[in-house]
């Protein structure tokens, strides 16, 4: 599991070379910019998948009639059928219903962790991005120290201190993610700081705070949705790993990592409880990565 800085390749482009052929003239209207990208099949499927995921998180009962927690022992470990699309688990619970209901947990914990990383990352990153050398050195060393701990292990330390639970693994993953966001925000702040419009504002005679609030801050924050989309997949991966270890939500919670941990005992006789929740995690991460990369591509070069 990798919570740490993840190299980003422009996969959306690699997967679809129609997007942005070299030397293409930039289309002028917004619609013209968006339209060809929506045609990219990978991106379109990803967006559709994420939309369904959000629906499943908000209204899980609209997707399935079965209860995620109550099963029929007599119907334990039935293979996938039309009635039970993903089969049933050891306790006769519908795996499809559990996977659908699990969406909410995975997304919520992932978003929660991300919010923590972002909040600290933004504040520290902006501090580091100021012209003050000492502030920059100090904050950057904080990032170095935080990222010198492997993400999973740092998260495990946090859980040792705080105890198991959903909120606590969100905090754990959130802390581990701070340096990653902090460094991006620092770079962005430096870019904005040196931009022409800030110089103009200084020449114009605006005060330091006025420049910061009205010109620097908004332009730094523009980057946040981009970084957030690119990294949310990683956060979800990290969270699922901790839940798999039993550090997050506890059984019978239908969380994807927890479900996979439970499936470990029945693998010998049944493949379905160990396949579908994992597929859900992987597809979610792929979808977020593709969308994130597409957004990043669109913002490239105009962030500052």
């Amino acid at each position: 599991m990798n919570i740490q800085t993840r190299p980003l390749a422009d996969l959306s482009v690699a997967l679809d070379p129609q997007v942005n052929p070299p030397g293409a003239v930039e289309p002028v209207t917004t619609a013209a910019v968006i339209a060809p990208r929506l045609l990219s099949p990978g991106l379109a499927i990803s967006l559709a998948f994420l939309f369904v995921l959000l629906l499943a998180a908000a209204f899980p009962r609209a997707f399935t009639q079965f209860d995620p927690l109550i099963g029929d022992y007599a119907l334990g470990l039935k293979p996938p059928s039309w009635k039970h699309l993903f089969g049933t688990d050891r306790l006769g619970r519908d795996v499809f219903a559990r996977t659908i209901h699990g969406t909410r947990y995975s997304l919520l914990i992932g978003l929660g962790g991300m919010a923590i990383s972002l909040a600290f990352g933004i504040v520290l990153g902006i501090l580091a991005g100021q012209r003050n050398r000492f502030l920059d050195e100090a904050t950057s060393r904080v990032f170095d120290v935080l990222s010198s701990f492997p993400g999973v292990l740092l998260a495990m330390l946090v859980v040792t201190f705080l105890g198991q639970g959903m909120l606590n693994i969100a905090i754990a993953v959130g802390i581990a993610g701070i340096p990653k966001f902090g460094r991006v925000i620092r770079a962005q702040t430096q870019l904005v700081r040196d931009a022409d419009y800030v110089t103009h504002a200084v020449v114009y005679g605006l005060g330091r705070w006025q420049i910061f609030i009205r010109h620097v801050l908004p332009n730094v924050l523009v980057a946040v949705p981009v970084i957030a989309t690119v990294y949310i997949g990683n956060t979800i991966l990290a969270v699922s790993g901790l839940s798999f270890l039993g550090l997050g939500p506890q059984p019978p919670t239908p969380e994807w990592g927890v479900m996979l941990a439970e499936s470990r005992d029945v693998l010998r006789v049944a493949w379905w409880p160990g396949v579908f929740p994992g597929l859900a995690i992987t597809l979610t991460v792929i979808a977020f990565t593709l969308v994130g990369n597409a957004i990043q591509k669109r913002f490239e070069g105009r962030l500052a």
Partner: protein
Amino acid sequence: MWSRIISRLLTSLVVAWASVTAAFLALHALPGRIQDILAGDLEYPGLREAIAAEWGLDRSLPAQYLDFLLRILQGDFGTSYVLRQPVTEVVGSQLMPTVQLALLGGILAVIIAIALALLTAGRGRISRQIASFLELVFASTPVFWLGILLLMAFSFTLRWFPVSGASGWQSIVLPSLTLALPTAGLLAQVLREAMEKTLDQPFVTTVRSRGVGELVIRARHVLRHALLPAVTLGGWLIGGLLGGAVITEKVFGRPGLGTVTLGAVLTHDVPVVLAVVLLAAFIHVAASTLLDILYLLIDPRLRAQ
């Protein structure tokens, strides 16, 4: 160049020292008495007093801090009160299987990534699309799920490899593959992109004009350049491997640091978890320092600056 190496070493020492300090501060910043935090889930008369004596809790904070630093410098991570053993013994006895797994996983990851990059960088559209799709899938798959899938395919269905345990070479094949694939996916992404950039450089045309074969150009000339950006990922890679090893061990029921750490987390055995985390941080810092220095030695352009 020497000044650069020395300053790099100093920075690493500062980071290592800061991580120990952070651990100390975290202990003291937590609500509750240190005795209670260190005791874990344990409760018996005289325990709190023994902990207070061992950690010198009656002394001033700076004295405690200095003592903490000195002890860690001597490789003494204290006592696990839950296991009633020195932490060094607990961790030391389980270190080897994890190091083996992480090393093997790392080597496999590098081999797979280099093979993917060598074969697909700058080739036709279809092979590149396939490669980048594979990389995306590998990088997005949770380590433990990959382990579960491999177990189902190769242990339960085909019966090629044992299901769990750590005896014989067969038992390490699936865990190391599990650990390697996600890392290989990320590494291959970076490597391929770097190779594609390098392939456009004039010196490649020069080499090609000398009649050197395509594979030799890639393996001998382009790869060396492309490895440089990948080397910067080295530290991150090692951290990821150590963390991944903990999870992989759980999937395959392998003995090692993972089992020890997980048990310690669940019984709130703070000294053990702290030792594992600090150890991992030291390994991470040492490895990335070494790689950065290697980077200086490999690339003459950096030396000149």
